[in-house]
């Protein structure tokens, strides 16, 4: 049962092969049995899940079921869930029971899906290996002899889906946090266009970059979940007023004649030969379906990581100021005065990577440095966006690597944070430009999955999902599962 996709489970439920309660119990049992090793969940909401499952079965009995009624899934612990612990992977929110639901959470509730729990993540979504979580690192289920990272920051969601502890999960992506773990865990993850999914109730890291999306096994499942997640929300000023298409409707469209761009800056000599080969095979596959390829140039793409490491920290330095120990969250013991309360609560509540980014951000915004850093980065950001805008004048989709390598060992990046930052070298420009991007399994390197990235024009998630689905119809990389599950 656990190898079924959401689509298959949905059919199974509708045909009465199993009930939602049975299905939910099945996954809860798997979590109980397997997650001790993987640590992909921070909170498992077993009782609530079974209640929801019961309600879903009731709805089905009344003949009011939809695609999602009774389908189990998990939320990344960045989404506020009413009455349920919401930690954002931080000690700061170790005891935070959210008093409200994020819009994504209420959308999923309305769909009738059953939430199994909240998945582990890098603290405040800052990280590419899931090592920064206060609740311990997440182990990539593909690990064999050596323990490997699942990627980050949505590493918990990715590991849980890869280990078949949940059929699908929500995730968020600020610089690659859906796509990179998807690549490292052999999954299909989609970061929608900025503004497509509401950010209300999604704990902010970098407001102008954050975007939520599905972490799935297949493009079809991702399309199904995006149907539920996407849409304008009056509570999020940056959410875009635009009709949401049925993303499943165009999955099978022909890709004959589709023009795909290959950015020469991404296909450079630093790319490993194994990854080169995998991408070439993927290109050939799509070519066989009629897609055409051409080289394009994104001349400012090498500035993505530098621009990102000004903009994201600057925004996060302000976004995380609300964690002050006054209204919620960690407060230090016996503060001797106001300053002491602020400093100790925040110093105790935040981990090292979060603190580093807050400091970088405060520095980049401080008097005398604003123009050289923040303003400059925002200018470069426009150059990066303009590169994409001109590229999309004569192509439909961009294909590139997602991550430079498959899953790596813990601590393998040394203690220079910059080495870790380069993990997102192919994904970050998409966030800066606000474009939709997805990663889907494209092959194995040393037995470990690795993804390829598809980048679309604004609001062209359908096209990405279409290409991905066509690829998955012809290949089986996405069906591979880790051995020991």
């Amino acid at each position, binding site marked *: 049962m656990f190898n079924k996709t959401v689509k298959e489970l949905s059919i199974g439920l509708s045909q009465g092969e199993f009930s939602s309660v049975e299905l939910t119990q099945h996954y809860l049992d798997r979590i109980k049995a397997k997650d001790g090793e993987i640590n992909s969940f921070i909170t498992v909401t077993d009782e609530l899940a079974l209640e929801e499952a019961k309600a879903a079965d009731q709805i089905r009995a009344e003949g009011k079921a939809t695609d999602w009624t009774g389908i189990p899934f998990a939320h990344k612990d960045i989404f506020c869930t009413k009455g349920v612990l919401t930690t954002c992977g931080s000690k700061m929110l170790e005891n*935070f*029971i959210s*008093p409200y639901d994020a819009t994504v959470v209420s959308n999923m509730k309305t769909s009738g899906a059953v939430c199994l729990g909240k998945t582990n993540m890098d603290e405040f979504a800052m990280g590419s290996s899931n090592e920064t979580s206060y609740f311990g690192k997440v182990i990539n289920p593909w690990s064999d002899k050596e323990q490997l990272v699942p990627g980050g920051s949505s590493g918990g969601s990715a590991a849980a889906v890869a280990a078949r502890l949940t059929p699908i999960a929500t995730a968020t992506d600020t610089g690659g946090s859906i796509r990179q773990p998807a690549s490292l865990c052999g999954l299909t993850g989609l970061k929608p*266009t*900025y503004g497509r999914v509401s950010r209300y109730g999604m704990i902010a890291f970098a407001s*102008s*970059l954050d975007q939520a999306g599905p972490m799935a096994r297949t493009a079809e499942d991702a399309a199904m979940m995006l149907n539920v997640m996407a849409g304008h929300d*009056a509570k999020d*000023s*940056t959410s875009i*007023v635009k009709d949401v298409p049925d993303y499943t409707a165009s999955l099978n469209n022909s890709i004959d004649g589709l023009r795909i761009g290959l950015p020469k800056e991404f296909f450079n000599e630093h790319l490993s030969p194994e990854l080169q080969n995998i991408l070439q095979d993927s290109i050939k596959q799509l070519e066989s379906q009629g897609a055409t390829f051409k080289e394009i140039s994104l001349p400012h793409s090498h*500035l993505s*990581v530098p*621009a990102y*490491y*000004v903009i994201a920290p600057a925004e996060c*330095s302000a976004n995380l100021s609300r964690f*002050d*120990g*006054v*209204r*919620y*969250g960690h*407060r230090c013991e016996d503060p001797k*005065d*106001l*300053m002491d*309360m602020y*400093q*100790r609560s*925040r*110093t105790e509540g935040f981990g090292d990577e979060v*603190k*580093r980014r*807050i*400091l*970088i951000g*405060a*520095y*980049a915004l*401080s008097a005398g440095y604003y123009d*050289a*850093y923040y303003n*400059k*980065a*925002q*200018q*470069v*950001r*426009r*150059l990066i*966006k303009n590169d994409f805008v001109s590229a999309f004048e004569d192509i439909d989709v961009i294909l590139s690597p997602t991550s430079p390598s498959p899953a790596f060992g813990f601590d393998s990046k040394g*203690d*220079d*944070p*910059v080495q870790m*930052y380069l993990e997102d070298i192919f994904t970050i420009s998409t966030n*800066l430009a*606000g*474009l939709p991007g997805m990663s889907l399994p494209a092959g194995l390197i040393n037995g470990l999955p690795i993804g390829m990235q598809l980048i679309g024009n604004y609001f062209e998630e359908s096209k990405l999902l279409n290409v991905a689905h066509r690829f998955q119809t012809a290949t089986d990389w996405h069906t591979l599962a880790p051995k020991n599950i």
Partner: protein
Amino acid sequence: MSIGPDDINQIAHLARLKIDEKDVPKLSGDLDNILSLVDQLQAVNTDNIVPMAHPMDAVQILRKDVVTETNQREKYQAVAPAVEDGLYLVPKVIE
């Protein structure tokens, strides 16, 4: 540009973080590495480029002036570290 111990202390103060004296050299090195990555930005000419604060060229939608919220004090203060008489308590505020 490089971040010295004084800078670290200054920005840590602005951000209300406390940095242990012994951690300053390592942190200073980390931040320097990040800044030298970031300094690649300086090489590109951005004259007349309008800074981009949002990826989309969208316009703010304004909300009608309607009261939609009701008193939820008890619920919201359930997650507060210290409250009394409906107030959030903090160490004495001295102006």
